[in-house]
Each structure stands twice: as C-alpha cells, then as structure tokens.
C-alpha cells in the first residue's frame, strides 16, 4: 500500500489488515507510556485546505504517538491564501522531505491529483476531498462496529451486519467511503435520506434506500445507525433548499429517544461529528449508553496510527 486515497481501493484483505493493526495500536494506547519509536525520523505533513479540527488533531496525535515529526500546514494564513497552486505547495513539501502528506481539500479528487502527479514522492493519505472520499473515517467506523458487534474480531469482516446511514448522502464523503468499505467487508447498507439528498448515481450502489427513518427501523433489523451531520447553511431557504425546514427534517430523519428504543437491543449509535444536537440527533440518543460517538474519536487515533504504520514503516516507501 503506497497511498490511501479511497475506501473503494481497499480489498477485503487490505481493510482487515488495517483493522487488525489498529487493534494492536489501540492496545499500546492503554499503556502509561503511549509513544512508540516506530516512525522516528519520518515527517508527516498535515495539509489542510479546509477547516477541520478533529481530523487534523487525530492525525497529528497518531503521527506523534509513532514518533514521526508533524508539520501542520493549513491554507488559511499560508501562501495558499496568496494564490499558490496545489502543485507549488506539493513541490514545497517535497523539498522539505515529507514522507507522508495527509490532505484535506474542498475539491473532489485533490488527493488523487497529489498522489499521481509526480510532484512529490511521499505517500498521500486522503483526509477528505470535496464530496468524494474520507477513507480513514470509514475505517474507524468499521473498526468501531467490528469491536462492538463481532465476537473475537481479529481477522474477521462485518458479514451479516446491517448498517443504516442516515442523512445528507448527497454531499457526504463519509457516506460514500462507508458504502464502499462496509460492502467490501460484507455488511449490508441501508441509506436513509430524503430523495433530494440521495445522489443520482446511488441507484447503482449495492445498497437499499428508504426515505424515512421510521421505515428503516420497521423494515430492517439494524445493527448500527450512523447519523450524518446536517450542514444547516446549505439545507433550507431559498430556491436551493433540500428540505422544507429543520423541524421537518428532525421529524422524519432525526434519531430521538423513542426511535432509539425501537432499535434492536444491541444496536449502536454512531456519528462522525461534529453533531447538531436537536437536529439530526437528540441529546438523549447522543448521550445514551448505546452511543459510541466518543469512542469513535479514540478509535480514530488507533486506525490512523495503523494507516501511517502500514504506509511508512516498510521498505516500499524507503526509496
């Protein structure tokens, strides 16, 4: 593995290898001494063209726990705001000796461009590009699901599990990455969204689509429910609205206490964060014992450690 650009590029074996490595990484994070010497002397650059606190600090923590040097490069207040192109930024990073670049960009395909352009030699990890992919989020979600719902998880996929992804599928790279990875790992995916927020091509995806959360709960035995964030600003008002009002969205797609109690006993509640409490998820659901939202954050560090280890530790990247 040289780059991690899309969850769709991963074979089942690749994905399971990452998840199994993450299990060992997570175990080291329970020790008093949590820092490992593994990537000493390697440099990881966090290249963020879009605001993101959680993903950036999660990658930063992961790289630092493995003793890599971390350089944070955010577009705001940098040469990018002065008009520097992606190419020149990449050449600069290459000159600085970046072994891996973790890139978040508003344009779909930016990570792919960086990896295949020949501008730099390092590994590229896609930390979210436009509405396209966010593979480490999908990996941490699958890790979390496997940890909770698969007995003796090591070496296993997610066969026989049914996961609902609820909300704005149209704009969500988290949803796309999860559809790819969950199906690769053998889980069944149910998309739950208003018709306006389902992408045109979704009919070709290996998923079932329903148009209210109640319908999903009634017709499917769900093992995990993944709530997506509603980007309030782009959703309502004007001619470009995707649904009539936040209240209506909440009524049809929000996860509240009542809906939570109708889920099977073992089902877990997930959210990639940041949450809009009271819109897509109620405080009762977010804070319930079945919510694994806070744990997802911790698992994110372990999964990103595993990805950095697998990309950077071996000989392939030494040249």
């Amino acid at each position, binding site marked *: *593995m040289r780059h991690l650009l899309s969850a769709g590029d991963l074979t089942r074996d690749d994905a399971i*290898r990452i998840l*199994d*490595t993450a299990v*060992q*990484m997570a*175990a*080291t994070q329970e*020790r008093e*001494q949590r*820092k*490992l*010497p*593994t990537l000493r002397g390697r440099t990881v650059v966090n290249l963020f063209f879009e605001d993101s606190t959680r993903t950036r600090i999660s990658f930063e923590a992961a790289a630092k726990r*493995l003793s890599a040097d971390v350089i944070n490069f955010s577009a705001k207040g940098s040469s990018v705001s002065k008009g520097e192109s992606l190419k020149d930024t990449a050449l600069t990073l290459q000159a600085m000796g970046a072994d891996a670049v973790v890139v978040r960009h508003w344009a779909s395909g930016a990570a792919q461009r960086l990896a295949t352009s020949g501008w730099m030699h390092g590994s590229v990890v896609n930390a979210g590009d436009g509405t396209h992919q966010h593979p480490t989020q999908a990996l941490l979600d699958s890790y979390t699901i496997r940890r909770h719902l698969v007995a003796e998880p090591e070496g296993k996929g997610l066969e026989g599990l049914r996961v609902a992804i609820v909300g704005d599928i149209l704009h969500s790279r988290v949803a796309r990455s999860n559809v790819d990875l969950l199906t690769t790992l053998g889980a069944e995916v149910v998309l739950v969204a208003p018709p306006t927020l389902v992408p045109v091509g979704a009919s070709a995806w290996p998923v079932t689509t329903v148009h209210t959360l109640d319908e999903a709960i009634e017709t499917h035995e769900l093992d995990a429910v993944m709530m997506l964030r509603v980007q309030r600003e782009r959703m309502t008002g004007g001619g470009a609205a995707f649904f009539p009002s936040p209240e209506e969205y909440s009524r049809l797609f929000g996860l509240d206490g009542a809906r939570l109690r109708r889920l099977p006993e073992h089902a877990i509640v997930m959210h990639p964060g940041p949450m809009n409490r009271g819109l897509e998820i109620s405080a009762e659901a977010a804070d319930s014992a079945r919510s694994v939202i806070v744990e997802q954050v911790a698992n994110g560090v372990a999964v990103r450690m595993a990805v950095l*280890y*697998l990309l950077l*530790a*071996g*000989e*392939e*990247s*030494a040249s």
Partner: protein
Amino acid sequence: MTGTILGAPDITRALTRIAHEILERNDGADDVLLLGIPTRGLPLARRLAELIGAAEPDFDQERRCGALDITMYRDDLRLQPTRTIGQTTLPPAGIDDAVVVLVDDVLHTGRTIRAALDAISDVGRPRAVQLAVLVDRGHRELPIRADFVGKNIPTARSERVDVRLMETDGEDAVVLTSRVQQP
C-alpha cells in the same frame, strides 16, 4: 554440518535444563516472569512456564507468562516489507520489579533483543531482565549475550537456522540449512 541439529527429545531436555537454571539463578520462581517474543518465543515461554510449574507447584503458569511483540521497536523496519504487528499480552500484575526472562528461539545478531529491551522499558521497570534462547548461532552485531542457552550451534552467516515447534509448525526440530542461492 547441515540437517536436523536437535530433535524433539533434545529440545525437551534443553528446555528442562533451562527451566532449572532459571530457578537456580533466581533462588526459586517467586519474582520470575516469562515473556516470549512472537512467533516462536511464545510457545517456548509457555513450555518453560510449564516446566517451572512442575518443579515449583506454587508457580502460577498462566499469570507469570506473557507475550512481548517487538515489531514496532525494530531497527530494520525500513529494510523489509511491512511487518504484521503481533500481540503483546502482559501479566495482569504488570512487570514492575519482576525478574523478566525474555524467551526467543534463535539468538543471532542481537538486534531483536535490543528491540525487546526497548519495548520492555516502555511497559514497565523490571528489577532485572534475563535472556533465554533455544539456539545461539553466533554472529552478534551488538554487545548482547544470553543467560540461558539450549544449544550453541556454530554457523556460517550464509546458513539458516529454523526452529520448528509443535504449536506453530506441527513438529519439534531445529534444522540447519545452507541458504539456497537466489538465481
């Protein structure tokens, strides 16, 4: 001399002797904790624990035996394809103030043991660390020696020593082969 150097009875005898040497050196097994280095150090550590338990009935074999994976501490990670990380299982009481006996199959350059010493210092502070190996084949590249050795086997650098164990390979044997030249 190539071929099978140790058979199953030889391995059992060597391990039995090592178990007794460990007891002798440490005045019993009260503080002794065995940590096997995966893959083949682990079954060897379990066997030593069993043999020590046979001599000292108070020795709790389960709680005094663990696994220490050293992959993330190696100094040759960049020279090899990406290695799979093994499992580290430490005894519930931790390793602080114990006498840790590291167990591995073959002692060669000493680099694995160097990595293991680093790994140990990250998980606790034992009173002492000792090293038990089934085979010492020489060619050290670091100032490291074993406290307990099953058998010293003089080898050429080009030769290869394979320890095969019932638990991992379906038989007990130590085999010396001349490395096949790659075409």
